[in-house]
């Protein structure tokens, strides 16, 4: 079995799972309880938060636990929009965001907010000049992802940060769900970033847990009202086993980060180099510093992505169409569409996404398998002609 769908979800790590189990079994008190068992849980919660803050290079009080990427994105975006509605109702995002960002803005638009969706170039990148022109006195939020989940483009977060330095009251959110642990941290997380989202199941931890980074002093309206956990920003009894497991997973993730990223890039390069030689194959994820090392998106002309995914599956190779979250909907406005890629080619796209457990041997095997599939489809589609 070859699993090349790590951007959708990763396999939980055994030791992370064992932390989850130990905590669920032994440290099950409610962190808000006054007694010793609550105390013990509260202490582990603090230790987890401390460790995460230290690993991310932020302050402990800037780490908030949520149920995952979608909730972190929603809290950052809706939370800002509501909190700052007195100051303006103009919001800016890009046209290539994840559904949990895009649909957030659609919902806010229905509530009367004005949303600007920045276009992207043929690499899927936002242009800082477009952003500069979009900003007006009503703008309260800019939300741009760090790494695109479909083709792996790294957005110019550093340049955007430079621009936004002149607009200190605009809250800057970065959806960094695909960006952590890929040795590109300084490109996608700057001093100017006010809010950032993370999701644990993208790095070998359980699903249902994530992080919202919120810079000290920045204000958000909570989406959940309740017992006031997470300093009132995210009520609900803390999911301590998952939180502790996530803290451990981040430590493991960031250990030898560079070597892992190099390994992923080597796999991507190998497959990409091979695909380059195949007529009818169009590669969207380039092999340069503007793209994350772990995502390779390409299309085989004339064959729907879905077909290719299922064909590969017959050989026990797991991939996805461009985004797992969008794969069940064919009319989804995708990154490729925003890049003005022909609809036919866009619907042919598939995404391979790697992690550090993938090997070059798997890449070789993939190439070998793909060669057979390709020869079959190429013949039907006259690709070699």
């Amino acid at each position, binding site marked *: 079995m070859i699993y090349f769908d790590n951007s959708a979800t990763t396999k939980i790590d055994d030791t992370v799972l064992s932390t989850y189990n130990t905590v669920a079994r032994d440290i099950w008190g409610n962190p808000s309880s006054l007694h010793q068992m609550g105390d*013990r849980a509260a*202490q582990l919660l603090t230790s*987890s938060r401390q*460790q995460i803050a230290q690993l991310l290079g932020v302050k402990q009080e800037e780490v908030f636990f949520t149920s995952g990427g979608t909730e972190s994105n929603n809290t950052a975006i809706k939370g800002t929009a509501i909190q700052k509605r007195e100051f303006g109702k103009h919001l800016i995002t890009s046209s290539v965001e994840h559904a949990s960002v895009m649909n957030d803005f659609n919902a806010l638009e229905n509530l009367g907010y004005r949303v600007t969706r920045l276009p992207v170039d043929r690499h899927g990148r936002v242009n800082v000049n477009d952003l500069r022109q979009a900003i007006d006195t009503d703008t309260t939020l800019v939300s741009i992802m760090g790494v695109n989940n479909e083709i792996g483009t790294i957005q110019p977060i550093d340049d955007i940060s430079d621009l936004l330095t002149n607009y200190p009251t605009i809250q800057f959110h970065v959806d960094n769900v695909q960006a952590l642990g890929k040795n590109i941290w300084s490109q996608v997380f700057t001093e100017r970033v006010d809010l950032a989202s993370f999701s644990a199941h993208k790095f070998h931890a359980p699903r249902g847990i994530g992080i919202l980074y919120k810079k000290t002093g920045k204000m958000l309206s909570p989406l959940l009202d309740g017992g006031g956990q997470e300093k009132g920003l995210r009520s609900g009894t803390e999911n301590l086993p998952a939180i502790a497991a996530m803290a*451990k997973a981040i430590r493991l993730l960031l250990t030898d980060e560079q070597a892992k990223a190099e390994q992923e890039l080597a796999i991507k390069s190998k497959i990409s180099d091979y695909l380059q030689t195949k007529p009818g194959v169009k590669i969207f994820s380039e092999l340069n510093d503007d793209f994350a090392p772990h995502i390779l998106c390409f299309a085989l002309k004339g064959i729907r992505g879905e077909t290719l995914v299922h064909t590969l599956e017959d050989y026990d190779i797991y991939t996805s169409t461009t985004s797992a979250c969008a794969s069940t909907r064919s009319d989804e406005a995708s990154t490729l569409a925003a890049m003005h890629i022909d609809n036919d080619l866009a619907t042919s796209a598939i995404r391979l996404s790697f992690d550090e457990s993938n090997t070059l041997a798997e890449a070789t095997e993939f190439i070998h398998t793909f060669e057979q599939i390709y020869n079959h489809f190429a013949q039907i589609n006259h690709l070699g002609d």
Partner: protein
Amino acid sequence: MKYTEIMVRYGELSTKGKNRKDFIGRLAGNVTKVLHDFPEIEIHPRHDRMHIVLNGASFSEVDQRLRKVFGIQTYSPTIKVEKTLQAIEETSLELMKETFKPGMTFKVNTRRSDHHFTYDTNELNTMVGDYLFKHMADLKVEMKHPDLTLRIEVRQDAIYISNQLLHGVGGMPVGTGGRAVMMLSGGIDSPVASYLALKRGVDIEMIHFYSPPYTTQKALNKAKELTGILANYSGRINFIAVPFAEIQETIKEKLPEGYLMTVQRRFMLRLADRIRAQRNELAIFNGESVGQVASQTLESMAAINDVTTTPVVRPVATMDKTEIIKLAEEIGTFDLSIEPFEDCCTIFAPPRPKTKPKIDKAREFEARLDVEGLIERALSGIKVTTIHPNEKFLADKAEEDAALL
């Protein structure tokens, strides 16, 4: 830079004569205590200086410890070199390069106790100065108030070179000021008062009143952990936990509200005094600051102090709260002090305590109680533990957490 020894200069020797020997002996003992985990280090106390021979130990680690030892005025990391001009020059250059910053002034100051050495002090000053000028840019000499003084000491056995003068915390070596009890609540003031007591050389034992179930184990552990921070300044501190709930309950039941606070405090002082006497100590220290709360008005202090003639020393009596907080931050107790656990002073605090209680009234009300019985029972319940530097009582699961995470 690999320093070979540290030269320590003593602080104020306020009383001379035989006390001087006590002072030096005690200081050497305290230094030994804080450096106990460096077996290679040798400590030589002499009448005017103390020499700490590092034998390979890291100066920066030793430096961290020495900064907290009372009785040290200044100290200088020093390098011992063989008695040749070349060794002096090369080592001097290395030292200067490490500590010199552009714009600084310097001078060379040679002392010579070996008068058979080839060069005299003036020659050495000039030669070493010239050598440094030749090998370093931007050097400027200043005889009166140089930023850096390169000290060269020519002794019988070797030559010692240093160019840094580091400041210790001053004060008197802990133990030279006698022994006393300290009333430690766990708030901001009493840890600061403890620090100031230690600074004057007083060897203190902590007395902490606790009132389960009104106060929690956490509050007790917090006081212990504060003691652990203060133990950095003295090596170790005894912690005496005194159960206080029965006394508080009895007072609350039998006395009018206005005098609850005054009488509680009188009991605390009585207990502190009895413990002090049992342990052969001379005084009671506390963290009272004039006018800060109702129990700390002069009238209250007089009514409370009525129960003993033992000296009650209040190191922070005249400090402002902001000054106390600043010091608490410096000595590292502040963050812990503000952790919000109920302590026995807050749990039975009456809403309207008398700020001007009368001594006569306090005595009169107290006559309704079995004072001696209450005191005896509290004393029979005390627990003494010895607390070492940075000992942890609150975050005792950190290791377990680290294993999980």
